[in-house]
């Protein structure tokens, strides 16, 4: 069997809109991608997932608690390229809106932040790990994502330039 691009699709604090866009792109691309992409981690679609030895990790969402911070660092160690997907991953917003609350609203939500070990601030991915590329949008732009994926397939030698 010929080599495929080993990808992981991860989601942190966000509305998962770009995941939905990706799943809708499969309407046209599934059979083409089946021969090119090995989805090693895609919890929305798979029960058995493996985040090790990835060529590319596509990461959606901002980082809002300690567990997410640890996980995204682990993803970084296990992928050659990490791509931030969608607005929350690229800029933090709108998932980071609590960063800008006034004092009284911050006090109102503090018990939740304490109970679930939230970080002091919600962060865009690049504040937590090295990000190699950004595909922004709320949700991500379909055409831009497809052009980037073509670029990565060429970069990793899966298709010829």
């Amino acid at each position, binding site marked *: 069997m010929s080599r495929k691009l080993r990808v992981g699709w991860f*989601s*942190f*604090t*966000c*509305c*998962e*809109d*770009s*995941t*939905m*866009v990706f*799943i*809708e792109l*499969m*309407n*046209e691309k*599934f*059979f083409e991608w*089946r021969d090119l992409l090995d*989805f090693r981690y*895609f*919890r*929305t*679609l*798979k*029960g*058995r*997932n493996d985040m090790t030895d990835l060529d590319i990790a596509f990461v959606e969402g901002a980082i*809002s*608690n300690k567990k*997410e911070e640890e996980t995204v660092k682990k993803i970084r160690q296990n992928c050659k390229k990490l791509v931030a997907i969608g607005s929350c991953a690229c800029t933090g917003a*709108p*998932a980071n*809106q*609590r960063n800008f*609350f006034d004092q009284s*609203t911050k006090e*109102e*939500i503090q018990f*939740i932040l304490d*109970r*679930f070990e*939230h970080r002091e601030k919600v962060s865009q991915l690049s504040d937590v790990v090295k990000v190699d590329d950004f595909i922004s949008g*709320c*949700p991500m732009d379909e055409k831009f994502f497809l052009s980037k994926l073509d670029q990565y397939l060429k970069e990793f030698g899966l298709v010829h330039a």
Partner: protein
Amino acid sequence: MHDSLDINIEQISKTEGHADLEVKVRAGKVQDVKLKISENKRFYTQAVRNRHFVSVPQFVSRICGTCSIAHLTCSTEAVEKCLGITPSPQTELLRKLAVYGMMIRDHAMHLYFFCLPDIFKVDSVFEFDKSKDQLVKQAFAVKGAGNNLSKVVAGRAIHATYERIGSFSHIPSKEDCKVMIKELKSARDHVLDLIKIFYDCDFAFNRKTTFVALVTKDYSFLEGEIRSSDGTVIKEEDYWDHLSRVVIPYSQATGFKFKGDEFMVGALARMNLNKDSLHRNTRKDIPKYLSVFPSYNIYHNNLAQAIEILHCIDHSIQMLEENEFKEESPPAVRSRKGRGIGVIEAPRGTLYHMLELDGDGKVKYANFVIPTAQNQIKMEKDIALVIPQILDMPKHDIHHELEKVVRAYDPCLSCASHFLRIKWNRSFV
């Protein structure tokens, strides 16, 4: 038979959003079950305060990627009710079509991609062998039809752009409607095949419960009265008075009870309470499958979803064939102090948005009640009751069976973690 068993599932798979499950069995008895909705809060109920109403529906549609059109539509209705705006009949038709597009796409994603792998005993759609290629193509045709219907009517399937307070900013062309009718008709036969698969599926877990849904005369998810299987009839604006919130300390989502007891919202509730209002073509073609309802089998939620796809296709075809959409002047939109409540049926059940606006049109208080949060208590109890029936299975299979129960509800965990009611200043209005 496991005498002692611990199951910890981190991130239940094939659902929308994040949830964990912890189970503890000792001396053959279930000691503890914790369904933890672990989706981190983004605090929309707080963040929406002081926003001008014009931006609110688009803003809160970001609560959820998959059912964003439901939040957009429900919030728009809340703003309109507060401001005393009555949308035109054409706007109401376009809203129905936008919501139908979402229902088709969202239900199809859940059924084909999350549930069918369980029925065919594989891990995911990626593991379907080539003998299933035809079915996979059908899945994409059905999902694509819903996706395209939302695009034609509302601009995008995810975070739609045309829907706004009182009107639509863009009207679908005659040509687009023609293409859409053809696409929907071509997807229809595939949906009949899908319904048969879920009818033939022998998964079962029956437990009597109370069902609650917005009962609409044309099964269009948007207007009507809230009804429950115990015979209660509630006006949309009074729904909150029948709910009690339950803090679940280990879950980032608040649970709810209806009239003090656990209950269920969603496709199964709608089908049990309102199947006679389905489109006539739907009723004509599937009497055998409809005879299953009313049902207490939680897995029939998925059969109900498949039938709802057929209804959405049939009613959309009729609306597109019988109407020619024209540019029309939007109604005047002026600030007014007051309270507005929107209630619609989202894919996973009854969705409630309440907004209080001040005289400058800014939000002073917001309250959102999410379908999955309403189902949370029943879901957890179902898991506790399923475990004794499957304790003789290998641990891996128990794990899988428990995920299956959760998936049957089609929970949307991104949405569910958005209720946080702390301050309630009744002196405002």
